[in-house]
């Protein structure tokens, strides 16, 4: 399976300010994204995520290293023919309507008239902007702009979709819709490269992730490999019994009325807790084992650097 994106030893230093003071942002990034996979690119703010994307798309010229997109050098405009990009805070020509903007984008790809109309109609339906299609973009809410951005990213039926924080600023319903669309990409065989701060969503949709901290990739691998199924602790919610009853078995985390939330670290002690509740005629409200999540890995990795 070929690589959709291959980045090797990417370096970039910015010289900003009136008296230029160099700041090395990317210190040698190497990663590859295989075709058809959904890749999550994570990192704290200022780590270099957006800079990597800017280098990838040719907004910024790398100081060193090579980048290949779908087998072509990233400097060639042809490498972007089958690429779609949704920027973090979408900015478009706000006097155009969504329909006009999509028509313009289609013109940039040289689509024929019929194909243009068909695709625009289909994409507007997909992102849920059918009714607002003829409103000027300046009247759109943040969520609507994000949807319009997604539509323009898909106008050329891309093989590789690059999404910078696609789920930011959306309401829960919107997030679900966008997530579903991204999952559909996988079914269609598209490659997805996305960044996000919302790790729960990454966990849900990505196959592989990389974590960038301070301009370097510090962790990379398949999601299932990085995140073990190990149970960290079990949360037990009980009512009708005082917290002291569980001393030695678990840690009481919060008390609300007569409900007690316990954290039981030892798996074997969970059964003891359940038995105790049963004996003392208390009520077991809920019991949920908490496995290691991506967030745990992330916090761990970042704080270690």
């Amino acid at each position, binding site marked *: 399976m070929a690589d959709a994106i291959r980045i090797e030893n990417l370096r970039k230093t910015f010289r900003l300010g009136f008296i230029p003071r160099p700041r090395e942002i990317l210190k040698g990034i190497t990663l590859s994204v295989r075709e058809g996979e959904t890749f999550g690119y994570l990192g704290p703010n200022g780590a270099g995520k957006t800079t990597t994307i800017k280098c990838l798309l040719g907004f910024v010229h790398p100081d060193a290293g*090579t980048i290949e997109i779908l087998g072509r*050098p990233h*400097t*060639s405009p042809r490498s972007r023919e089958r690429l779609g990009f949704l920027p973090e805070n979408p900015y478009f020509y706000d006097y155009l309507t969504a329909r006009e903007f999509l028509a313009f984008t289609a013109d940039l790809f040289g689509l024929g008239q019929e194909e243009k109309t068909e695709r625009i109609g289909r994409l507007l339906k997909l992102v849920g902007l059918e009714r607002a299609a003829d409103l000027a973009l300046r009247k759109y809410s943040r969520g609507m702009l994000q949807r319009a951005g997604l539509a323009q990213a898909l106008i050329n039926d891309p093989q590789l979709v690059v999404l910078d924080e696609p789920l930011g600023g959306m309401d829960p319903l919107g997030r679900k819709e966008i997530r579903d669309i991204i999952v559909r990409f996988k079914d269609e065989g598209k490659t997805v490269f996305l960044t996000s701060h919302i790790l729960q969503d990454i966990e849900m949709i990505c196959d592989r992730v990389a974590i960038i901290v301070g301009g370097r990739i510090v962790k990379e691998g398949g999601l299932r490999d990085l995140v073990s199924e190990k149970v960290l602790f079990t949360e037990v919610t009980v009512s009708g019994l005082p917290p002291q009853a569980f001393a030695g078995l678990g840690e009481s985390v919060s008390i609300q009325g007569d409900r007690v939330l316990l954290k039981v670290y030892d798996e074997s002690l969970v059964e003891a807790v359940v038995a105790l509740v049963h004996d003392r005629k208390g009520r077991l409200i809920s019991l949920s084992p908490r496995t290691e999540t991506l967030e745990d890995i992330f916090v761990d990795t970042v704080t270690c650097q």
Partner: protein
Amino acid sequence: MKTPAANKGSVTVLLVLALAGALAGLVTFKGLTDRVVRKKVPGSSIIYIPSGKFLKFAAFGFRPLAADLIYLWAVQYFSTPTIDDRFQHLDHIFAIINELDPRYQDPYEVGALIAVQEKRDVQAAFAILDRGAANNPDQWIYPFEAGHVALMTLKDYPLAEKYFTQCMKIPGAPDFVERLRANAIFKKGDLRTSWETWLDIFKQAPDERTKKIASNHLYNVKAAIDRAALGDAAAKYRERFGRFPANLEELVRTGFLREVPKDLDGKDYLYDPGTGLAKTAISPWKR
């Protein structure tokens, strides 16, 4: 397949070559354009008038427009009778206008008009009109008007002759200028040249009317010549004999005249023994 860096480099080289090519092109065409002679009239003389120089620099590509605006202002300015010393800078102001647009005709003419009629400064008028002639050597109007001023206002006939001669040389000058010149020569007192000039005009007259005019003038010149000769002879007779002759034949008899002159039509002059002067039987203009 070139490496991406080499690809980018070769495009940059191409662009730099294109840049150099465009530069060479523009330099070449500028040179070619410079060589084409445009009717840029000699006006870039050294101006000692600071405001004129400043205006020329401040006007960029809009010198004729600046000339228009200043001229408009000047017209209003000189029509304001309450400004007592408005003629003090007449030449200065019109010099600026002429400098900005040397081919703008009205300011020369109107400036000279104001100089003659209102400022009563004939030399200022000449200065303006001379500038007009110098800047527009193909326009007959300027020496014409100067000649007109010399003839009518200043009554400086040699000067008038000079201007009319200058005017005649310019292609397109009307034919009456020739006649004005001849008249100026007559008024100057050079009767011989005047006769010859009028004779030329008579011979080259394109139509009957001009011929008639020339003929009248010839009559007039001949009459002047003859009257001068007669008056001269009569005066000499008086010196000898203490009185004016009774008639012209007496002058011939006594040898002061070779023969009794007749006017151009062959008629006699009328002689007055009391004054010793002769005059024509009819007016030259009513023949």
